[in-house]
């Protein structure tokens, strides 16, 4: 009956047998492939994304140089801090990607198709996590060439990488949510600007002991500082200047709790907001 129209092979929808879960996973994979295909078309952009943090690392290491009160090699102190900073700045990348995507007409088509609701967001997540993981590996490579070393076991190194990716995962969902709340690219720029103080009001570059008391306290409670301190501990990059406040002494705990709390709040919010875009 339809041979003359869309061709004899015009297939009915949903013919792959499978449960809702299998279909949902298929959709997530399809959306991940979409993001990977975008990379394939924008190789330069991908490289720029990978090398921006490397540039920051080199700049802070050689131009701005050591911070006072840090014993030993500054690279040992700086490099793990820069890992954490890179994860936090991933927030920015996620927000830009989500806003541009949601303002594209293709989202209308996705939403009019029988696909799993969150697959678009899952595709975004997988792509961003892969990108950040690649970025982390590149940074570790560059770190090694400028004198940073890890001194712990491989398990500890894996733990450090895991903590950093957890921080990135938290930034991912925070970013997705903020991007949807802001909606328009102009508002996203405003949020982006706020990422910088969060990134720099941390112990990535210098120890809180060098700051006024009130600022030092704020810095020690910063999720990024907790991650940096915990990661330094795991890599064995102890600069011997860990603070003595509760936050500084429980950095490892905070480095887990902060991201988990952020994900617990913003993942459901983001998913709900995405589902409710039509109202």
């Amino acid at each position, binding site marked *: 009956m339809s041979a003359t129209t869309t061709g004899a*092979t015009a297939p009915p929808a949903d013919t792959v047998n499978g449960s809702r879960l299998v279909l949902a996973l298929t959709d997530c994979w399809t959306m991940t492939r979409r993001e990977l295909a975008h990379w394939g078309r924008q190789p330069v952009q991908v490289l720029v994304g990978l090398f921006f943090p490397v540039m920051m690392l080199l700049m802070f290491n050689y131009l701005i140089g050591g911070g006072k009160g840090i014993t030993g090699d500054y690279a040992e102190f700086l490099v793990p801090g820069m890992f954490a900073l890179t994860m936090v700045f991933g927030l920015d990348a996620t927000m830009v990607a989500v806003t541009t995507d949601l303002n594209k007409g293709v989202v209308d088509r996705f939403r*009019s198709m029988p696909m799993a609701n969150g697959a678009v967001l899952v595709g975004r997540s997988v792509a961003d996590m892969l990108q950040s993981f690649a970025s982390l590996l590149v940074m570790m490579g560059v770190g090694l060439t400028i004198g940073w070393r890890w001194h712990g076991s491989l398990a500890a190194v894996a733990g450090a990488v895991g903590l950093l990716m957890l921080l990135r995962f938290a930034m991912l969902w925070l970013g997705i949510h903020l991007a949807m709340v802001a909606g328009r690219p102009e508002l996203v720029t405003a949020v982006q600007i706020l990422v910088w103080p969060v990134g720099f009001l941390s112990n990535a570059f210098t120890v809180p002991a060098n700051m006024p008391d009130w600022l030092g306290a704020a810095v020690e409670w910063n999720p990024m500082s907790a991650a940096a301190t915990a990661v330094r501990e795991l890599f064995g990059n102890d600069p011997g200047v860990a603070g003595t406040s509760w936050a500084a002494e429980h950095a490892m705990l905070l480095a887990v709790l902060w991201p988990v709390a952020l994900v617990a709040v913003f993942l459901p919010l983001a998913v709900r907001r995405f589902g409710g875009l039509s109202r």
Partner: protein
Amino acid sequence: MTDAIVVEGARKRYGEKRALDGLDLVAARGTVHGVLGPNGAGKTTAVRIMATLLRADEGRVEIAGCDARRQAREVRRRIGLLGQHAAVDEELSGRQNLEMFGRLHHLGARRAGVRADELLARFGLADTGRKAVKQYSGGMRRRLDLAASLITEPEVLFLDEPTTGLDPRGRAEVWESVRSLVGGGTTVLLTTQYLEEADQLADRVSLVDHGRVIAEGTTDDLKARLGGDRIDVVVRDGAELVRAARLLPGAVGGTDALGGTDGVGGTDGVTVDADRRLASAPVTDRMEALTRVVRALQEEGIEAEDIAVRRPTLDEVFLRLTAGRTEDQNRMKEAV
């Protein structure tokens, strides 16, 4: 259940603005239903609600027997959507797009690829290769968009102004696709600003204004109500315009139109436009009217610059339907 689309009392507000104000619409299976209306009438809002992209504040919306609010996923399995604006991934190639949409329809990787190639060939996009869609021309993009809405043969296909921005060939191709789809049993809902398009394709038409249906029927019904074709006469000398307008009613319609010769803009539907030196009147028999008008003008010694028989424009249709509601007429003029 033979109706593929049932909309009852659909309302949608944006702040104070009522985009839909109690819209009713029914389309039988396997038919083409035209939704005709000026800018801002609520056509896109209606389509987005029917395609589950928006929720109506009030009212019942049933597509292919499924409730658009509670069974959105079921609806989505059965529909295709060609939105007013392109809904394809501009960064990817046409083939990448179609393959992706095929996978999202759960065809599986292999069949999604095969289907993509078929559709590319069918819509004349087979040689686009790896080129990103953002480098396509407007017409190519529209064709790809249409192909994407036909990945699986939908039970109900929504087309929001499918031919706006297409050249005559592209337009003819879209029309051809629509006709063959309907031959295959698909129900098509098509919005348009062109009366001719509705005339060409639609079995029934709803005229929409201010988020409400102001007239509904077959195109023949509506044409009968609206006076069908019109003849336009442009006179060389503006001073002759009124004289030309006076003889039009007698000339065009055979005996039954002879009654009303009182002139301009009267019940016989004659209108004049002094700036363009144009007089216009409804006709029933195109050829007959043309011959008689030419002869009448010659007899009266009125020189014409141009004479043409044409379909009424959407403006004229709306002006006629809303005659007496001055605010609407003013709005229509602004919208033109």
